[in-house]
């Protein structure tokens, strides 16, 4: 099938790509402001539609059926996944989508090499093309396998704990070296391909991809759950870079511009996440975070200082409170307690209590995880406060309810310089008159260190599953008003 736009002037395609690029940029810009975010996403998707449509119309389609079948199948799967997802499963789904994008880039770069060799011979491959294809193969494949592992961890399907072993850095370096060696072969002697078995498949490229797939798994497997916001943000950046490098291979400006935009903006989000934990990216990726909980140390901190409370007692506290701040953590997501928490907030609001949510930037398993869950439970946007906004207000707060959070409210971060979380900005909840901590047990958070907050005089522990406990609290409040 000849191209529909075969007779169009040469500038039509690049001009359409330019317009698409403007849509992407404006879309991303709008997505950084709450009021324009919905529009931004729509503008950006309009740019994508334009870029894809003009491409379909501009190229000679040798196999249109294959192309449209692919679009249909992919669109159906994507839509189905998006429609059926629970809000609590959002981190792994975003991770999975991301992996598919990276994987597609790696496959496209390889297919292009095969195509060039088939039509013009291996000699037609320039060093620029083979080099960028090699880079696209590495980044794309790392994104693919890394995202699958990250999604698996988040879903609790496999590699759920942080898996570390002696010499892991050497192993990673070795595998990375293998991938680079593959790229070197690809660049220096593409003509070698002519003498190898199955040469027309460009084996050196697929060797690179195989090594990079392994590398992606090795890189993500050792990283623990609470560091996932950083990993997801970084892989998002990588998927953009993979698309950009594939753009070099295909000499396609749409891929280069859009891919690089995502690469750069994703990197910013990654840096924000790292800063929220006061750790470097290197430390998150290779550092090996978290201690084995030390029972003796825990006893020192907790012994005799833990006050337990009950939903009835908490209800009495809330009855006389004027201002309440709720601090949610990953435990709320696991227990799917967001609806109960939102209902509690609403009940208290009706009583004239000032209720706000204090949200730590790395609470949960992806950037902004808590906000998404609370929004799903219809908590108004202006009730969710960021760390810097809410910290000064704790001294005027009567009751703080911490549900399913631990490290992000650990005062050790400010008090002990030798602690693994030293310097991490935390929610200073103990400035409030009373603090209620809802947790299943006194077990440690991701950092593996005890939390002296639990032992403070104004802290009471409300043990139990977040959903059940919050529901119990809601019932208490309803009964007594």
């Amino acid at each position, binding site marked *: 099938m000849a191209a529909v736009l075969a007779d169009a002037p040469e500038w039509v395609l690049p001009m359409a790509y330019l317009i698409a690029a403007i849509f992407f940029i404006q879309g*991303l810009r709008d997505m950084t402001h709450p009021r324009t975010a919905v529009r931004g996403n729509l503008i950006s998707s309009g740019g994508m539609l334009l870029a894809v449509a003009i491409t379909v119309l501009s190229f000679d389609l040798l196999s249109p059926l294959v192309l449209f079948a692919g679009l249909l199948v992919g669109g159906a799967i994507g839509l189905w996944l998006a429609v059926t997802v629970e809000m609590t499963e959002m981190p792994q789904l975003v991770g999975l*989508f991301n992996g598919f994008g990276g994987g597609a880039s790696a496959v496209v770069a390889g297919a292009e090499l095969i195509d060039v060799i088939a039509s013009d011979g291996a000699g037609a491959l320039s060093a620029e093309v083979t080099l960028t294809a090699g880079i696209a193969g590495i980044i794309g494949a790392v994104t693919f396998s890394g995202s699958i592992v990250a999604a698996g961890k988040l879903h609790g399907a496999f590699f759920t704990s942080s898996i570390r072993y002696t010499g892991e850095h050497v192993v990673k370096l070795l595998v990375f070296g293998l991938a680079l060696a593959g790229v070197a072969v690809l660049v220096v002697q593409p003509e070698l391909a002519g003498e190898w078995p199955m040469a027309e498949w460009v084996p050196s490229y697929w060797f690179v991809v195989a090594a990079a797939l392994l590398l992606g798994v090795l890189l993500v497997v050792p990283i623990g759950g609470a560091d996932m916001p950083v990993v997801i943000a970084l892989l998002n950046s990588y998927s953009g870079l993979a698309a950009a490098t594939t753009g070099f291979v295909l000499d396609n400006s749409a891929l280069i511009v859009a891919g*690089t935009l995502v690469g750069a903006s994703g990197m910013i989000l990654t840096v924000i996440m790292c800063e929220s934990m006061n750790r470097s990216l290197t430390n998150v990726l290779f550092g090996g975070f978290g201690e084995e909980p030390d029972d003796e140390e825990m006893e020192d901190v907790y012994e005799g200082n833990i006050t337990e409370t009950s939903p009835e007692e908490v209800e009495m506290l809330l009855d006389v409170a004027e201002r309440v701040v709720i601090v949610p953590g990953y435990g709320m997501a696991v227990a799917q307690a967001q609806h109960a928490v939102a209902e509690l907030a609403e009940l208290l609001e009706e009583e004239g209590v000032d209720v706000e949510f204090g949200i730590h930037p790395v609470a949960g398993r992806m950037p902004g995880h808590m906000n998404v869950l609370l929004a799903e439970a219809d908590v108004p946007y202006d009730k969710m406060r960021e760390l810097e906004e809410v910290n000064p207000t704790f001294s005027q707060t009567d009751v703080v309810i911490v549900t399913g959070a631990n490290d992000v409210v650990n005062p050790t971060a400010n008090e002990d310089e030798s602690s693994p979380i030293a310097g991490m900005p935390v929610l200073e909840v103990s400035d409030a008159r009373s603090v209620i901590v809802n947790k299943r047990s006194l077990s440690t958070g991701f950092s593996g260190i005890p939390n002296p907050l639990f032992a403070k005089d104004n802290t009471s522990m409300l043990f139990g599953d977040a959903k059940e406990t919050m529901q119990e609290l809601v019932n208490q409040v309803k009964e007594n008003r």
Partner: protein
Amino acid sequence: MSFVQNLTLFVLSAFVGYEIITKIPTNLHTPLMSGANAISGVTLVGSVVVAGSGETTLATALGFTAVVMATINVVGGYYVSHLMLDEFGGERGGG
């Protein structure tokens, strides 16, 4: 275009990408990431070229795989971003 022209695009786009994202409220972290992620599905454009115009069966088959994966990324990515932003719906008047 020459390699250097492409490199120019790359470098300038990197600066633009860096500049347009300044202060992002925590609320928008997830939708922004997921929306940006959908943009990275632009590799679909490349997949379309390869799947539709592949000269060999192998390239066409790989192109098909890539089209499926990239379309999942694009369609799913934009749609979940929209769903999440819709959840924040109450803010649209007040911001």
